[in-house]
């Protein structure tokens, strides 16, 4: 396979989506844990989540914007088709994304224990469930090629996406929590979430076997097999690292798991972008546009990468 402009654009889109899945996913997962915060350490659990998300969520969110812009710049035909076919789950996901962001920031300024603050906490948690569920559902529906977003398969992928966000969040937060007891709470949650992810991941595969023969055939692709194997191994590594307090390695493992799922997904259905409707090439804009986009992306990256490094160094230094 030679590196054409289209393949390079696919790579850029893949990087943006992977980073959104991991970093944005961690922020959504934080909202899920905020909703599920319980027990005697409920308040410090929520405080730890707020502190972890606060400075970075807006930057993490831009990966989504960047993925959208990349899609309509480089693959406008598929972008338009998906926007028509999947308008419903995308609209619901959008509502979730909007309410999550707004409620999270609003809550920080609503004062403690006011009625508004309590409402915003519920909205923040519920929206953090809604957004990844419908983004996952849309991805599942896309893979069917029929935009069947109410199909059991698509819905199961939505559930899988939510559990995965919860897993990423619980794993990522470990390095940032100061309070040992709260850290242990999240350690237990990270293990449980990893088990939940493996169960939630098996369900769409089983449903594909039962209801989506075309899709199940795509899962027999060697890339898909490899991706599932990597994801499973990474999941085991997450548990091992979390239990043995190797928190940085756990982060790495959970990121590998998420990227393996996405990479296996698109690698497995390649060269199809929307199976049965568009391939990467048939959806692509002109080479002139894609090359201009790639040059802009390269120039942008020169500014972006050091800025991101600075942001994460200032706010994501490990807790002592």
């Amino acid at each position, binding site marked *: 396979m030679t590196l054409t402009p289209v393949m390079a654009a696919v790579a850029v889109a893949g990087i943006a989506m992977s980073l959104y899945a991991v970093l944005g996913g961690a922020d959504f997962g934080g909202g899920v844990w905020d909703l599920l915060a319980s027990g005697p350490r409920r308040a410090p659990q929520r405080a730890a989540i707020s502190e972890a998300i606060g*400075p970075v969520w807006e930057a993490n969110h831009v990966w989504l914007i960047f993925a959208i812009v990349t899609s309509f710049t480089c693959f406008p035909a598929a972008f338009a088709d998906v*926007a028509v076919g999947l308008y419903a789950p995308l609209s619901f996901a959008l509502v979730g994304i909007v309410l999550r962001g707004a409620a*999270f920031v609003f809550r920080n300024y609503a004062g403690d224990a006011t009625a508004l603050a309590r409402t915003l906490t519920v909205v923040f948690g519920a929206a953090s469930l809604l957004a990844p569920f419908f983004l996952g559902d849309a991805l599942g529906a896309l893979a069917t090629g029929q935009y069947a977003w109410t199909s059991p398969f698509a819905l199961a992928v939505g559930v899988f996406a939510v559990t995965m966000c919860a897993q990423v969040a619980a794993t990522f937060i470990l390095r940032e929590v100061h309070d040992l007891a709260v850290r242990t709470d999240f350690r237990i949650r990270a293990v449980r979430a990893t088990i939940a992810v493996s169960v939630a991941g098996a369900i769409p595969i089983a449903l594909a076997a039962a209801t989506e023969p075309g899709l199940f055939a795509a899962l027999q692709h060697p890339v898909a097999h490899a991706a599932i194997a990597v994801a499973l191994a990474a999941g085991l590594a997450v548990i091992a690292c979390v239990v043995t307090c190797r928190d940085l390695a756990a982060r790495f493992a959970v990121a590998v798991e998420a990227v393996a799922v996405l990479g296996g997904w698109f690698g497995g259905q390649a060269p199809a972008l929307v199976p049965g409707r568009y391939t990467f090439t048939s959806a692509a804009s*002109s080479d002139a546009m894609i090359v*201009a986009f790639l040059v802009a*992306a390269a120039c942008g990256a020169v500014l972006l990468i050091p800025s991101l490094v600075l*942001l994460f160094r200032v706010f994501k230094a490990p807790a002592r």
Partner: protein
Amino acid sequence: MDHVFAARAQMGTSLAFHIVFAALGVGLPLLVGIAEGWWLRTHDRAYYDLARTWSKGMAILFAVGAVSGTILSFELGLLWPVFMKYAGGIIGLPFSLEGFAFFIEAIFIGLYLHGWDKLSPRMHWLTILPVVISGALSAGFITLANAWMQMPTGFRIVNGAVTDVQPLVAMFALPWKTEVAHTTLAAYVFTGFAAAAVCAFAWLHGDRRPVVLAGLRVAMIVGAIAIPLQIVVGDVVARFDAAHEPAKFATMEVLERTQRHAPITIGGFPTRDGGIVDPIELPGLLSVLVAFDPNAEVTGLDRIPSNDRPPVAVTHLSFDAMVGSGTALLLIAIAWTVAALRKRAGNRVLMLFVTLGAPLGLIALEGGWFVTEFGRQPWIARGLLRTADAVTTSPDLDARFFGFSLIYVALAATCWWLMRRVGRPGVAS
């Protein structure tokens, strides 16, 4: 509701909502940066308090701007997929660059808002500079895409398909300079006068703390510098429109027939069919404005095919609202400057007028946006694609319009309540 109307209503509501927060997102970092910079130089505690207070407001407003902007990026596809299929591969470049500018903005606003205790004062102040720069740049990049919609270029259509795309040519469509200057200045005008109005309102209610006076000073300086520049640029924009966008120009000036000694038409009442009756006419002035010559011919709507004409009443009245508010803002700026130079800025009448700066600035901002967008109709990209042909085939547009409108109401109400709260003395973040 009619399908196209519902889509336009949703897009229009989204843009009218977002532009307020987008403008504040461009302008507030400048105000905050000036305030904190002043504190670093003079060690005047009032300016530190000012930067702290404003940055709380900035956090809330920036978040609303980020999420409402996200709605727009989705709606491009959810409402106008045919347009995006055509245009995505032509004007993707300014959108992509905007993506990076927004990235830098989001990263450094995170550093600024959460870095008060983690960075040295000087480092902390430095983190606002990339926000100021990338905020202006992202507004500029988005406006480049809008300039292309006004006068599409950088491609050819062969057998109905887009070919020969030249992304850099498309990125700098003819109106780009005037539009970018006008939009960016609009953000500073609106933010300056809105922030000054908040301070003046507090002053009128008896809050005379140094932080309020400092806020008035910084905000009014920004507004008073931006508004005369904006009026000069606005004049250039009008002459550009007369030369290159005659349909829009004739519509905003309600010039029915092509003529010499063309009059300027002010105000009037909208008719049922979208026209204007009983305006004030100032004979010959439009020709003078366009060409500095009362004999100059100005193109009227009679030269525009009837199915290519923008809606008259809304475009014209928006234009007048913008010009009228802008002029009023200039007068407020002059009055404040004179009073400030004579060290007599603290009087009730002046403060009352400064308070009016917020609604006037809002009217000018929205009015200008309406002129651009209604003045482009019935095209989504002039001469290339009609708005009615660009709309999605997906259903439920009514429900979506009402659903998202509800979200905007909730966002605006909560935001309003919180802004009042964080402005109060002694509220911790």
